[in-house]
């Protein structure tokens, strides 16, 4: 093995150089185990808190009872509250947090823009139009489609438009893609505004609530479909760590590393749009999670996408379960929309972190 005599090798300059993220050297399985444990605890706490308080141990017994097929093991009333009302809601929050965070990581890499979030391709504005049409004019407006289905179709329509507009000479151009996303979002948002002005005043509250995101309406039937899609797509996305690492070094360099850049972009856009579209359909437009969590996890655990993707999923899930818990405990019995809290608590924390992180300042 050849060791060259390199003058600068002798003394790696440590002074003032930005340091790797604090948990960068902790093995991924350990990080995941700790965070997953934390997620389970947060889920159980969130399930126990509400107008009827249930202890952590009882929540655990109820969940274990259902999961292992033993059925109802404690007071049936408590079981009903926990298993049929709170657990679906908490799971939807976890699902949304995980899916949006992973989609955020992927899209930030895909368009090489740190400002990207799961809605950069117009999913949320498209979904809003679909949902608001149904909420403002009733299910008859779109041939009997429900709010969720209409929102999903609206979201997919917007993504398809952005995708077509983002092409340049048969290739996807990331800058065009982002600009198309912004333009299409503006168009759809103004359509939503027009619809809101036409809506009956008593529908307005429901519309506002939906636009600001909520997991309050979660139930098992809806969760089953959304859960399968979001979990499957998110798990699949977490496999693309190596490819995303290559992609962020630029198209040319990724090509030289054996990546089919065109096909990779296409696959990732389809998967992230599916995740964001389904979540829009069942939980409305939950903002800021998909922007903040990727950066947060990067600051804590490093920029390697092989770690970033699974960790963002778990951290995002914990975050949104906690936010949902806050949204219904701050001002009982009223509930606050999730968007208000994700931003109100998330943004200042994020700004504080960003300011003390030197590696980010250099980039």
């Amino acid at each position, binding site marked *: *093995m*050849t*060791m*060259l005599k*390199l*003058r*600068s*090798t002798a003394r*790696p*300059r440590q002074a003032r*150089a*930005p*340091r*790797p*993220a604090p948990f*960068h*050297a902790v093995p991924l399985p350990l990080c995941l185990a700790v965070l997953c444990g934390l997620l389970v605890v947060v889920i159980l706490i969130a399930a126990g808190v509400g107008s009827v308080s249930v202890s952590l141990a009882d929540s655990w017994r109820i969940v274990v009872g259902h999961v292992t097929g033993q059925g109802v093991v404690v007071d049936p009333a408590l079981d009903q509250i926990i298993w049929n009302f709170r657990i679906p809601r908490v799971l939807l929050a976890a699902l949304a947090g995980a899916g949006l965070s992973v989609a955020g990581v992927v899209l930030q890499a895909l368009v*090489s823009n740190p400002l990207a979030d799961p809605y950069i391709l117009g999913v949320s504005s498209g979904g809003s139009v679909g949902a608001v049409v149904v909420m403002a004019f009733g299910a008859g407006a779109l041939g009997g489609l429900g709010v969720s289905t209409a929102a999903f179709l609206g979201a997919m329509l917007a993504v398809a438009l952005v995708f077509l507009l983002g092409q340049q*000479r048969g290739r996807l151009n990331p800058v065009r893609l982002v600009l198309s996303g912004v333009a299409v979002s503006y168009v759809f948002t103004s359509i939503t505004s027009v619809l809101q002005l036409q809506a009956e005043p008593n529908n307005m509250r429901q519309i506002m609530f939906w636009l600001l995101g909520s997991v309050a309406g979660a139930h098992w039937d809806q969760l089953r479909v959304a859960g399968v899609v979001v979990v499957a797509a998110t798990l699949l996305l977490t*496999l*693309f760590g*190596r*490819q995303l*690492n*290559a992609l*962020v*070094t*630029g*198209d*040319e*360099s990724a*090509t*030289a*590393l*054996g*990546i*089919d850049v065109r096909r990779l972009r296409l696959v990732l856009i389809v998967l992230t749009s599916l995740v964001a579209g389904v979540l829009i359909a069942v939980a409305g437009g939950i903002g800021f999670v998909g922007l903040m969590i990727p950066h947060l996890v*990067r600051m804590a655990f*490093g*920029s*390697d996408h092989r770690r970033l993707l699974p960790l963002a999923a778990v951290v995002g899930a914990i975050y949104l379960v906690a936010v949902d818990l806050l949204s219904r405990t701050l001002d009982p019995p009223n509930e606050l929309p999730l968007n208000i809290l994700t931003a109100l608590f998330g943004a200042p924390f994020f700004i504080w972190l960003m300011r003390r992180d030197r*590696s*980010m300042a*250099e*980039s």
Partner: protein
Amino acid sequence: MKLQVQDVSVTLAGKQILRDVSLEVSPGEFVGLIGPNGSGKSTLLRTIYRSARPATGVVRLGGDDVWSLSARAAARRTAAVLQNSPTPPGLTVGEVVALGRTPHHGLFDRESKEDHQIIRESLERTGMLPFVDRLYGSLSGGERQRVLLARALAQQPALLVLDEPTNHLDIRARFELLDLVRVVGVTTLAVLHDLDLAARSCHRLVVLDGGRVVAAGPVLDVLSPEILASVFGVTAVAERHPDGIVRITYGPEPLAQDAA
């Protein structure tokens, strides 16, 4: 492996960039690709690492047309160090070098012991092992290029393709990097801007001008006063000094008259 570029022409956005370019790089050789800006050097490299498809002609590596191989199979043979590739400053040196293992793995593969060994060796060969946990963004220009070279070595390539690897480096770092490429001994085709460094480091040179090969061969044959004047527009002489090194001496009025 032997690289054979045969009659390659490339047209990008309606403009012909390369015309019937042919060249060969034998196993173990270090060939320099030189020529003025816009002569098609980078595009020629792109046809080799499968980024720009030739309109006509073939690029063969080890006898196989690289465009008939899959992207991954081709990347297991050819590694590239490119200009202006925006490597994220937040990745550590070890993570950047691990990228070199990308073409050796599918979606479901995890990094193996063997991968770690290869990554370690690549870092050792480029003298970057002490930097393994440093952030890429905290390195100097010369150190970054050595990390990218280590990444290319981790691909275990039969051919290295370098696009102006010494650009923006200070003079010592330039010598260090080109020495390193020679010591590593992988078959190399490098675009070089600095004629002095090219003359000193390469076994052979190929000169591109206006998308055509205008000269190719041993360093002293290629860097004739005529080529230096007509292609590069300078009055200069390349000669082998008694210490065995080829150096270029520029004339008192270095701007050649016949070049506009």
